[in-house]
């Protein structure tokens, strides 16, 4: 089959791009063409705005986009989580309604999983969805919702059966975020950023058929979303609008700025190992044998963590499946960030007491020091990672459960 050949696909898309790409069109016009042609998400099924091509062809196709300077589809970040979940689990009616507008970027999405009372224990969600005969009525609260303030629709996990065991009473919905029963408030963090939201539901409504998968099977659907959250995004990214002239580029820049805003402090959260040697040489700490030991420890941890990830990736390339070993990298990242924060303090000395413009690198150093604590919490705490590693990688027995039986009877936060 010719479709399975990278060269053919590249040839075909090259011709199509030549005919259709033009930086002076509007982003929405361009992405409408992407959706119509299937070149925006070529690995999606043909009936859902794709071309049914294998994932391995995407790099070759992307190369062609880059070669002509074309922008990719809008399916990045929360939108990609929505699309993979809907593609796998949603009804045709839902797919019909939403998938195309994900590619074009007309709709923004967010994820509504975590709750104040269920962080590590996601399946302990207590936001309720009650069917009133014609539609679902939602009450409860979600938290840590990136981009919820820009979202048109949300991926919601809510409880539909309180007598079932906790994983078996959840359902997965698409919810319209632009309605009176949904209130989105920013959640400010200790580093001053407010990159997450809290979302409150007060008799919010969901149409009867906006359920994804079947009733009470929401945990399995959520697993699909979460698996993709931990995986690098797959798609045709094309080029960014950065440093380019043309209407589509300008619009892409605006889009990216909004999308990236919540993630601005993420490099600081990871510890900014890249700054350490330069900073140490600048402050003179580079000549302190005690600080040098700590820098050497940090570089060893950081590089080894990188190499460990490459070992895992190389093992996958030769056929071994990706497993819960990702938790090792996550845990290593926490250790690296903590040590980096320590080293930055040693290097920076008295200036570690300052913040904002008074702090070195226009506040970057201060931001590292007050952001690193999030590394070992966000996306699954270190403690949860150690459970996963102990149980799923090393095969150690589980803790005895205290949350079996009907959800109604399980102790939970009030």
């Amino acid at each position: 089959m010719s479709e399975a050949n990278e060269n053919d696909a590249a040839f075909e898309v090259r011709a199509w791009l030549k005919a259709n790409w033009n930086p002076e069109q509007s982003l929405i016009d361009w992405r409408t063409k992407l959706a119509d042609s299937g070149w925006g998400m070529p690995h999606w099924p043909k009936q859902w705005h794709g071309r049914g091509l294998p994932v391995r062809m995407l790099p070759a196709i992307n190369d062609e986009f880059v070669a002509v300077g074309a922008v990719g589809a809008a399916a990045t970040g929360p939108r990609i989580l929505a699309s993979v979940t809907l593609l796998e689990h949603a009804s045709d009616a839902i797919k019909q309604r939403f998938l195309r507008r994900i590619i074009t970027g007309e709709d923004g999405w967010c994820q509504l999983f975590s709750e104040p009372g269920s962080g590590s224990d996601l399946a302990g969600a207590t936001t309720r969805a009650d069917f009133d005969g014609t539609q679902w009525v939602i009450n409860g609260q979600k938290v840590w919702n990136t981009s919820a303030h820009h979202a048109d629709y949300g991926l919601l996990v809510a409880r539909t059966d309180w007598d079932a065991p906790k994983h078996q009473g959840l359902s997965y919905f698409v919810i319209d975020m632009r309605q009176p029963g949904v209130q989105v408030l920013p959640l400010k963090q200790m580093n001053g950023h407010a990159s997450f939201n809290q979302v409150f539901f007060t008799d919010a409504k969901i149409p009867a058929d906006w359920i994804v998968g079947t009733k009470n099977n929401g945990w399995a659907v959520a697993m699909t979303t979460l698996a993709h959250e931990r995986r690098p995004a797959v798609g045709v990214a094309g080029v960014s609008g950065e440093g380019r002239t043309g209407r589509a580029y300008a619009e892409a820049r605006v889009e990216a700025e909004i999308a990236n805003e919540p993630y601005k402090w993420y490099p600081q959260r990871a510890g900014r190992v890249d700054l350490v040697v330069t900073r140490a040489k600048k402050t003179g700490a580079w000549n302190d044998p005690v600080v040098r030991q700590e820098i050497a420890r940090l570089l060893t941890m950081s590089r080894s963590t990188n190499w460990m990830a490459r070992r895992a990736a190389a093992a996958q390339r030769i056929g071994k499946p990706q497993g819960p070993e990702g938790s090792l990298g996550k845990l290593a990242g926490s250790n690296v960030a903590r040590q980096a924060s320590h080293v930055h303090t040693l290097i920076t000395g008295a200036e570690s007491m300052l913040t904002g413009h008074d702090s070195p690198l226009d506040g970057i150093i201060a931001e590292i020091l007050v952001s690193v604590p999030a590394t070992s919490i966000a996306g699954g705490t270190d403690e949860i990672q150690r459970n996963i590693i102990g149980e799923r990688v090393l095969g150690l027995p589980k803790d005895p459960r205290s949350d079996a039986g009907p959800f109604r009877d399980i102790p939970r936060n009030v």
Partner: protein
Amino acid sequence: MEYAFTDEQDQFRDVVRRFLGDRSPTTEVRRLMDTAEGYDAAVWQQLADDLALTGIHIPETYGGAGFGPVELCIAMEEQGRALLCAPYFSSCVLAAGAILHAAEDDQKANLLPAIASGQTRAALAVTEPNGRWSTSGIQALATRTGNGWVIDGEKSYVIDGCSAQQLIVVARTAGSTGDAGLSFFTVDPDATGVTRTALATMDATRKQAKVVFSRAPAELLGQPGAGAEPLSRTLDLAAIALANEMVGGAQALLDSAVAYANIRVQFGRAIGSFQAIKHKCADMLLDVELAKSAAYYAAQAAAEGDPQTPGLAAMAKAAAADAYMRTAANTIQIHGGIGFTWDNDTHLWFKRAKSSEVLFGDPTYHRELMLQRLEA
């Protein structure tokens, strides 16, 4: 050496704790940290008038309560616990300590009563923008003029430097280096030639300032050129006091972590029943108890005039700084995501811990100092 507090000391602690529990809840801390001056004048006056805290360790001859380092450190520990926003450390520990150690008797009689009564809030300016904590970092020049002295130079990290009504400044005579040629001075912050700028501090509950002196008129405190020894003693007392403040803060964090571990439920159990959390709390308690032991011992040594005090001060500072930072990080971790939010109080102590970690030198600096001093 005494290892237990006396009944009187315990009662004193109770009084201070009750007062601060009442007057320095975190709602107040949050209110004050957003103000420029960073303290509440009424609470300050009560600290002075009702509790006599502002002169607790100042001899009665100079208007103080006549107690010693142990009582001072109890006051500091409780302030660290409550995260009190007040110029206590700057005025009563640093500035008063400098005057006590450096000044002549008549100068003490002249300066200390107003500090002891809380009327004057003074600040000590030693460190400079180079951030070096040893005397080698002191570059500000003191020059004798016809009728006194003038100071030229730049001080930084001056705690409560903007709000202080009086500055105690350490400067050196031209051509001197290291410990030689250092003298203490009093400077009127409103005099011409003095420019104060607030620093943006990570710990908003403790204000700092940069102060630039340009032929600023100064009055000599104590003997000219003899500043190194009283400076060293002042910083020792400050390190001990700060160590006690830090263990108070660490205890507050530990308490909040344990309380949260007891009420927070995940997977159908209080998270404190999981060994991952329980054992972390146990290690935190040990950490805090060991740091307290070092901080209390150093205070007692200072009270008894033990010649080992300088080494013990360095040890206490290093131990408390490490324990405070670890406790703060662990308290955030035990709280999970909520512990990283602005509305949760943990970060207020975390930032104090981070700031205190490097103030007067980080634990590495103090460990080296400790070894040099204990060896001697």
